[in-house]
């Protein structure tokens, strides 16, 4: 802190003095960062080498594993950002804690500098000290990596990009902490305010996200929490995504694999950068306005004090609302909204009182600041009214056709493959990544029907009525032309126009985007190392297994079958005849499990080629006996209202062994061993009876599950079981 115009040498000398005066922060930061960026790297690299030796990895695989290890410590998927946040917090407190001490203010502010010079110099010293330490440990880390032979061009690019990201992240946390300090008069309040800045956008964003799920029936669980102005959230969110990307086959072997990381992190990094810049500007403004005599106050600017009180109290109120909802989840109904609202109001009122006591540092001040309390309660009520009354039209929102680029139906079907390459299912976001339905006209028609039904189902649920009335529930996504992605949950009733259903569900875009066989290169690649290659077909006649040439054969057959034979009307009246199962095991695990219809001729041909297609209709001769269980003897299920519990009566079981009885029962029932997505299950009367067909050849436990067709239950069954 000097007014002199210094030469570079003098500046360096001054910087050494600065570091020597701030030894405690540097002494904490340097060993911690060295431990992470150097020692942990050595451990990771030696671990990779040992692993390779034990499991006989090829040199290429080992090389990539070493690059992965370096990236895990120094690359964009590093965990060290938490340490960086701590160092930034510590440096900020070291540099600006003088503002809370009258003696230090007297000491520093009487010296011949301007406030601007003092703040600028403090920031410069902190940032340059951090950079010196960070770059030092990075260089040491790279030397270690080079010694282990774990260096590549893409890795260096990754480390360089991560260095830039880390600097931005450090600046964001540092500036936010300094801003919190500028707005506070005491260290405890500065710590609280830093936490407030760090958490409030995540807390409010999370709470509003929770309220969207709580109040809006059409809210999709596929929608991710998105928060702005939170560097911690930005980092944590992209780190999870990075962990997946780092398992890609070509990771760090080419520049594209690095740029994929940039694609994922760009908007989050931009958000962090904006926080860094905005908070720096605010630091400048606050530093200019801050008075030395404010040391010892809690929050130094009165309007900001009000803002903190209002926002924090609303956040508490909203949080308590979610807690109440959580407690009452299983018994939720329309009337409980009143209790929820009262709890929110009470919590906000209480937190206003507590906030006033904390901010005034005086317990007697609990009743002060009534104006802000009223504003907080009014805003909270407004939030409640907006959500409860859906004033934003969330539950009725269907974008106009002109605004929609394409649409997608998410996770509505067993899409076939699962592949575990180390970080969850590789095909997790398959539909989102591959389904681009451009027939938006029909999609929006379907969506409107589905939104209406979903809202009605929600109302039924809250009124303790039957929720799901023969309908299919989907999560859908609109990709808007402005780049936004809008998610909704819809429920399509089974009486929807079949032509409209087919226009979407039988389309090539839907089929290829829904079933991951159409983009299964990763699975095919892993299958090359698969030694077992056993394909199993299971039907009502048992399971048969054969070793096949490769997975590609199944995939090719299924692709043809799905394109030729999948669709709503094509499968509406069919149930699967069995299911196929195929696994990759060893270093990586993958699995295929898919139900097969009799119309899937290509696949059936393949199964026949390997002599494992064993499906045949169950005939009377094959059956040993049929056990019927009547769960409500002497009573009609229709007598009971939806949701009403049935009386606790002893079920009546009758086993039929005569061929005649068996034949009549088979005529009146259908095998329901395999679930058919589009099948019309309303044709069954399966609420009261279960039908268990005992057959030696059945795949599990020697019996098959059947259901009676409505109005066709044989008289003798009714007679035998209802008395």
């Amino acid at each position, binding site marked *: 802190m000097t007014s002199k115009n210094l030469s570079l040498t003098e500046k360096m000398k001054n910087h050494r003095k600065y570091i020597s*005066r701030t030894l405690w922060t540097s002494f904490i930061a340097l060993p911690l960062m060295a431990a992470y960026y150097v020692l942990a790297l050595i451990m990771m690299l030696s671990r990779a080498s040992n692993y390779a030796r034990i499991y006989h990895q090829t040199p290429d695989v080992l090389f990539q594993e070493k690059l992965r290890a370096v990236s895990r410590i120094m690359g964009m998927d590093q965990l060290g950002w938490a340490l960086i946040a701590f160092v930034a917090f510590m440096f900020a407190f070291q540099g600006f804690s003088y503002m809370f001490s009258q*003696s230090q203010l007297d*000491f520093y*502010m*009487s010296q*011949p500098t301007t406030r601007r010079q003092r703040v600028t110099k403090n920031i410069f010293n902190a940032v340059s000290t951090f950079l010196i330490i960070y770059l030092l440990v990075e260089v040491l880390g790279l030397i270690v990596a080079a010694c282990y032979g774990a260096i590549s061009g893409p890795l260096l690019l990754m480390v360089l990009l991560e260095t830039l990201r880390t600097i931005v992240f450090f600046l964001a946390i540092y500036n936010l902490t300094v801003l919190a300090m500028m707005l506070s008069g005491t260290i405890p309040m500065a710590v609280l305010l830093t936490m407030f800045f760090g958490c409030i956008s995540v807390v409010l964003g999370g709470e509003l996200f929770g309220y969207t799920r709580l109040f809006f029936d059409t809210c999709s669980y596929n929608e991710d929490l998105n928060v702005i102005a939170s560097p911690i959230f930005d980092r944590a969110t992209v780190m999870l995504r990075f962990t997946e990307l780092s398992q890609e086959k070509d990771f760090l072997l080419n520049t594209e694999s690095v740029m994929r990381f940039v694609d994922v992190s760009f908007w989050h990094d931009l958000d962090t950068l904006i926080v860094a810049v905005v908070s720096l500007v605010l630091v400048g403004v606050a530093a200019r306005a801050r008075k030395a005599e404010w040391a010892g106050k809690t929050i130094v600017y009165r309007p900001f004090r009000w803002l903190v009180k209002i926002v924090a109290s609303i956040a508490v109120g909203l949080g308590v609302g979610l807690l109440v909802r959580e407690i009452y989840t299983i018994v939720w109904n329309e009337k409980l909204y009143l209790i929820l609202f009262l709890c929110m109001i009470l919590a906000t009122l209480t937190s206003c009182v507590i906030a006033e006591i904390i901010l005034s540092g005086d317990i007697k001040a609990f009743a002060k600041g009534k104006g802000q309390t009223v504003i907080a309660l009014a805003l909270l009520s407004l939030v409640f009214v907006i959500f409860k009354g859906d004033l934003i039209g969330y539950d009725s929102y269907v974008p106009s056709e002109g605004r929609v680029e394409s649409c997608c139906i998410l996770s509505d079907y067993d899409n076939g493959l699962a592949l575990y390459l180390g970080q969850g299912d590789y095909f997790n976001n398959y539909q989102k990544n591959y389904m681009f339905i451009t027939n938006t006209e029909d999609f929006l028609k379907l969506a409107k029907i589905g939104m209406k039904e979903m809202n009605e189902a929600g109302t039924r649920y809250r009124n303790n009525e039957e929720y799901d009335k023969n309908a299919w529930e989907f999560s859908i996504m609109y990709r808007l032309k402005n780049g936004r992605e809008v998610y909704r949950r819809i429920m399509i009733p089974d009486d929807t126009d079949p032509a409209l259903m087919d226009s979407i569900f039988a389309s090539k875009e839907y089929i290829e985007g829904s079933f991951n066989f159409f983009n299964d290169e990763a699975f095919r690649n892993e299958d090359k190392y698969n030694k077992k290659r056993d394909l199993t077909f299971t039907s009502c006649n048992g399971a048969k297994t054969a070793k096949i040439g490769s997975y590609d054969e199944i995939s090719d057959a299924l692709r043809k079958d799905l394109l030729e034979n999948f669709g709503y009307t094509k499968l509406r009246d069919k149930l699967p005849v069995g299911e196929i199962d195929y696994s990759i095991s060893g270093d990586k695990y993958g699995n295929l499990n898919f139900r097969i219809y009799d119309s899937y001729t290509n696949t059936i041909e393949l199964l026949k080629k390997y002599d494992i297609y064993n499906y045949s209709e169950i005939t009377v001769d094959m059956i040993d006996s049929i056990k019927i269980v009547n769960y409500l003897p002497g009573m009609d299920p229709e007598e009971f209202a939806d949701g009403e519990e049935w009386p606790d009566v002893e079920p009546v079981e009758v086993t039929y062994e005569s061929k005649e009885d068996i034949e009549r029962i088979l005529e009146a029932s259908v095998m329901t061993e395999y679930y058919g997505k589009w099948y019309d299950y309303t044709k069954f009367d399966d609420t009261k009876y279960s039908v268990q067909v005992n057959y030696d050849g059945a795949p599990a436990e020697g019996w098959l599950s059947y259901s009676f067709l409505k109005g066709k239950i044989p008289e003798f069954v009714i007679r035998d079981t209802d008395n």
Partner: protein
Amino acid sequence: MIELLDLEKSFDNIKAVNRVTLNVSDGEVFGLLGTNGAGKSTLLRILSGVIKPDSGIVLVDNRPVYDNPDVKKDIFYISDDQFFLPNSTPEDMADYFEGIYENFDKERFFKFCDGFGLEKGRRINTFSKGMKKQVSILLGLCAGTKYILCDETFDGLDPVVRQGVKSLFAADMADRGLTPVIASHNLRELEDICDHVGLLHKGGVILSQDIADMKLQMQKVQCVFGSEEDEKKALEGLKVLIHEKRGRLHTITVRGDREEIETAFKRGNPVFYEVLALSLEEIFISETEVVGYDIKKFILD
């Protein structure tokens, strides 16, 4: 020269400095006297540019102080609660100030430390309160600034050290025109060092005057009159500030020069009279009582 005009500063609803107008001339020792909470420290913080006044003008050599490094490099402020860099030694502090004040004389500082028996390599946080004050004063003297502002700095120094510091002040005043401004709540601390005293009470200035002028312009007379008639004759036309009577012995504090007062008393033909030397304390008590302040209990601890 330091000029304060109509200076005001409030902290929340408390008026710490209330329309203060003072001048500190170059080369004189200005004593700022007042009770705790009178506004002395606030005034010094304003003078040193730590805090900004709400209104009024502060000029140091005709330049505003606040946020003005050019002026602040002429000022060294020693606050009541001195701060030293964490774990620093006198040597560290000298290094630090060498980078702050262009004319800081490190050699002189080390010499002073030796002279005062302060180990320059020892951590200051192991020093006694008085030793810390000595370090602050010596740093201030060696900073080479034109003005040195001391807040309660002399309180608590032992007489030998105080005398030594006073000598250094006197030498710097003579050599380079140092102008010290010394705040204290204890008049006795200031009496033998200050040329000019400003008395603050409840944020306002009760008086500001050269001590020599004060002593010349006020006399204390003890006398015995023959009759009441003589008393009236003697006091006629005099500005009596305090008049106490015990038996026949009168103790009268009167404004005016010695010659004028002696002439007046001779006119009353007293049985006995003697003009006594007034201490600074008595002058203050007299002056403040006149304007309605019962200052005795504050400044004579």
